[in-house]
């Protein structure tokens, strides 16, 4: 059934379809309407879940960690400084291998205070051991929430489903609302390996020594380093598990998509724009305009940022003359984090092949600065002539 709703409601409907048991969240713009909607579903009895209002984002995720440890399917959502306030628990959730799903409705971080969209919030959480998936439209938001629960529970790693504040969260768009029966077929009930149980008491994530130890059963148990290595190993195999999630989803719902990247008119392109989220759909308009002018260009959206699908990206970029990375975030003191990661993937997979595309980095839309399609097209066109700068260039800066 097709409906017209905003991106926050698309996310809320996804969570409802997944039958989350426990929801804990603290309101922050532009995430607020998402959790408000979920509280309404719980209040009306439409959704059989515990909705736990908390006094902070740190507590919101702490509640999800406790509930997930007890075997509940959990959900939270936040934005910007709320996510930063959660940061300690963000690390905890992945180290504890809890399959929590959290929507991050992307917003600029303070200071200075700003409520508008960029992606600095989730990008700054890159190294926390969470899976990060970026959505470009409302259909992707609802579908990604559903896939995220399956994948998180499959690999025991929490997932951030990221989408742009206002541009997606507050705009209305038609999308297909999946049938409950199909979602139930796609997503079986959450069955954790161990759930807190008073009959089998256990200490979870207590002080873990630098070296391995023999447990009370006489088995050699991991030290901290083994536990952390396994998180990395399982994140890398998540690249394969994500493809499995896509195939499973396509079989049941009939919507097929590339699991890791989303190329548009890239096959015969000499130059490819790369980005994440709604910006990549805006760039499709630029690609069409530049194609009409005779430029062979394409755009590739990166859907999975962590784990980074390095091989898929490098293979898609093989033989290209240049790559132009457009980002709504920055690793301050260097360049866009995506540009760095992309260059690393190119070096790893294409060095020595005689085809190492040049990379130009642009920063756009910081703190909600309007990204005019015409400016984006002009910037894209200028970058086709030659690499403009080693340093990342800021589009629309009025200095």
């Amino acid at each position, binding site marked *: 059934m097709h409906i017209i709703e905003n991106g926050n409601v698309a996310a809320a409907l996804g969570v409802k379809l997944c039958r989350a048991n426990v929801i804990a969240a603290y309101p922050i713009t532009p995430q607020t309407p998402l959790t408000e909607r979920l509280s309404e579903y719980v209040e009306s009895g439409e959704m059989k879940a515990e909705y736990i209002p908390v006094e902070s984002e740190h507590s919101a995720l702490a509640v999800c960690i406790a509930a997930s440890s007890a075997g509940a399917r959990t959900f939270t959502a936040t934005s910007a400084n709320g996510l930063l306030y959660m940061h300690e628990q963000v690390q905890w959730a992945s180290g504890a*291998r809890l399959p929590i799903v959290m929507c991050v409705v992307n917003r600029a971080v303070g200071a200075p205070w700003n409520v508008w969209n960029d992606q600095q919030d989730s990008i700054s959480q890159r190294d926390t051991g969470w899976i990060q998936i970026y959505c470009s439209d409302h259909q992707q938001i609802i579908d990604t929430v559903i896939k995220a629960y399956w994948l998180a529970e499959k690999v025991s790693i929490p997932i951030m489903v990221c989408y742009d504040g206002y541009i997606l969260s507050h705009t209305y768009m038609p999308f297909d609302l999946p049938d409950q029966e199909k979602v139930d077929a796609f997503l079986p009930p959450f069955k954790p390996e*161990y759930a807190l149980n008073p009959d089998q008491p256990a200490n979870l994530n207590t002080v873990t020594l630098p070296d391995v130890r023999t447990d009370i059963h006489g088995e050699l*148990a991991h030290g901290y380093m083994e*536990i952390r290595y396994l998180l990395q190993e399982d994140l890398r195999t998540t690249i394969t598990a994500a493809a499995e999630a896509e195939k499973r989803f396509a079989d049941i719902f009939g919507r097929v998509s590339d699991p890791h990247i989303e190329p548009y008119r890239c096959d015969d392109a000499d130059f490819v724009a790369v980005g994440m989220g709604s910006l990549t759909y805006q760039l499709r308009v630029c690609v069409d305009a530049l194609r009409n002018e005779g430029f062979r260009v394409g755009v590739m959206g990166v859907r999975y940022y962590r784990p980074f699908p390095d091989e898929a990206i490098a293979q898609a970029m093989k033989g290209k003359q240049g790559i132009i990375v457009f980002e709504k975030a920055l690793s301050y003191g260097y360049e866009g984090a995506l540009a760095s990661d992309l260059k690393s993937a190119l070096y790893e997979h294409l060095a020595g092949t005689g085809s190492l595309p040049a990379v130009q980095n642009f920063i756009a839309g910081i703190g909600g600065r309007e990204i005019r399609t015409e400016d984006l097209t002009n910037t894209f066109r200028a970058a086709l002539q030659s690499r403009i700068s080693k340093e990342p260039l800021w589009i629309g800066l009025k200095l």
Partner: protein
Amino acid sequence: MGTRNYRRKTSHSEHGPGDGGRTGSWRVERPVLDQNLCTPCKRNKESCFICWLFCPEVVISRTIPPAFNLEYCKGCGICAEECPTKAITMVDEAKFSEEEKE
């Protein structure tokens, strides 16, 4: 032989001796009992046991003489602090490792 096949991917411990690891290795000072000063030792009667009561790691036995489980004693020194007859002295672990070498 590593931990590859261990049944969990997280830190998970159950109640029982030492499932948090051999915390005795953290100790830099070891409690040493002088039986000539210890009340239950002197009287040969179950008495005092303030060291047993106060030990936060439950590594002191309620016996005559009280015994320290050095596998898990972290050497915090609370027993020595609380002992009313000053029968417990905290001794630098380096002294024992020198003795063990000899």
